């Protein structure tokens, strides 16, 4: 994968991901961290595009940058008296050590192995994904939809207070 577009795109997007990820850690304010997280999600989508994963890139933008970020925004809104500073606990030092260890380990693994080259003819993925989702992995697909239903109903039931039962008629 040595075409100049992919190379430039990869370095730009990778830099953006790592930079905004670091800024999520270092931001002083929870909402600034959220903004940087959104930037990292969007750059990850860019990285997926360099990998010819067009469907997953769009799904990443839709789900992560479009929905999960809005979820976190609502969570911040619904907790008005909580502290909005992005402070660290005392476990940040072991956390950083663990992160360093993981990064070193994966980096060494990546650098030391003799990986294969890229697949030669990677075209659009959306038909193939559709065929697999409804063919080979249909059971997992159905279970995932049931899981989403459970999560939806469960989240609604969790935060429901007893005062939301006067819904009569049309609003």
């Amino acid at each position: 994968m040595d075409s100049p577009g992919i190379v430039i795109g990869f370095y730009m997007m990778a830099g953006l991901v790592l930079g905004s990820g670091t800024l999520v850690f270092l931001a002083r304010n929870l909402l600034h961290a959220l903004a940087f997280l959104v930037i990292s999600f969007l750059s990850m989508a860019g990285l997926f595009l360099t990998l010819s994963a067009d469907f997953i890139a769009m799904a990443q933008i839709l789900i992560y940058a479009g929905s999960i970020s809005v979820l976190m925004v609502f969570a911040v809104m619904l907790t008005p008296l909580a502290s909005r500073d992005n402070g660290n606990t005392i476990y940040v030092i072991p956390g950083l050590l663990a992160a360093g260890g993981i990064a070193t380990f994966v980096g060494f693994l990546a650098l030391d192995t003799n990986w294969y080259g890229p697949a030669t003819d990677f075209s659009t993925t959306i038909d193939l994904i559709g065929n697999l989702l409804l063919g080979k992995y249909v059971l997992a697909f159905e279970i995932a939809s049931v899981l989403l239903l459970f999560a939806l109903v469960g989240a609604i039931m969790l935060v429901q207070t007893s005062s939301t039962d006067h819904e009569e008629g049309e609003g």
Partner: protein
Amino acid sequence: MSGDIRPATPMSRQIAEHQSLLDRTLALPRPVLGILSLMLIGFIISQILVGYLVISGELDGKWYDIRDLGNAMVSLDGVIQNSEMDSRISSALAYLVPTLLGATGIVSVVGGWLLIGPWVERRLIAKFQIRQGPNRTGPFGLLQTLADALKLMQKEIIIPRGADRLLYFAPPIAVFIPAILGWAPIPWSPKMSYADLDVGVLFVIAISSLGVLAVFMAGWASNNHYSLLGAMRTIAMMISYEIPISVSLLAVVLLTGSTKLSEIVIWQSEHGVWLIMLIPFAALAFLFASTAEINRTPNDIGEAESEIVAGFYTEYSGMKAGLFMGVELGNAILVGALMSTFFLGGYTLFGLENWVPGYLILATKIGLVYFLFVWIRATLPRFRLDQLMGFAWKFLIPVSIALMFLTAIESSILVRWDVPNFLSMGVIALVNIGAAAGLTFAWVKLLFRDTDLSAPPPPILTREMGGLQAAKALRG
């Protein structure tokens, strides 16, 4: 009483003395009329020439075939490839030049619209309200947009005291990005689309979900309770109406069998039918939900101009607020372009695209959809937020999903059996229209089964009823 009734007010005098367009044209001075008729004759002759070229097929694919500007791009590509440059430079140029030209084209379309769009909208709304719009600044008020822009640019930029620096300056830019990015996959002609993605439909849905964050940042960073309230209302509305948009586009993808926008247009042209005739409920749901996504009346409860000052962009002054208002306009024609591409046949018009350039047809359709938007804005009052949310969750989403199931059944039948176009499209259209109407009525009956829908008694003047005490006694 003399027979000649003299109107007293200037406005009615203007109405009384109004001449028709034909009268005014024939009253022009002779030389102007001569030039106009020469232009008309020249236009007819040129069309006959073009007709000969088109019919004989000599025009297809040449670089001067302006029916499809992509032909010029293809020949430019060939010129770059065949020149004696280093192969890496030539491949980079062959990639860069169409990209930059296309980007310039898109920005000029959106920018050009932002130059005359506000004027068009204000004059149209004024016509609906039987008054004249801006007609003072420049001939016919055409410089009104420029005057507004200058006014906004020279305003003092007031930043609220507790405003969050990072999150205050980002939204005017961040809200503009989806308005420009959404133009990328739209096909203007068979070879003219900036980025004909294989996942074009998903791209459109993903882009429309990016506007939500900009709205939230604007509302939050203003350090103003009312801005935040407006932002929350707008966000709730926008994320609720993303689902009907996705379900409608899912129905489109089911019927056409592809998520590529150019293939959707080609499907509509091959089957000789517009998707709005086949899945009208999905088209109308898409239209209404898009109106909510772009915060336009009747769904602009977040930035209702008469209620919450300006909603989430209250604290923005000068060109920042101008950008928000401009983006609303830019989004309106983007939705017009998407609606035309998905449901109105895109750049095709049952074969007319062999004569008239496809991009002109698409521009006309965008104008028609935009006219519909302005018509709705001038006519309908604003919906309340709970009415909007109830409509989305209780009506649009269930009925859209049910009709999408029906469309899935129809599309699988269509794929399997080889029926002539007329029969299959007619049957699908009839079944869909009947199912949509029937399901709508049944669902509304189900939703309203417990409420009393009889109209409240008409109001009576208290004076006629005999005073306040009598009125109270009557009403009980």
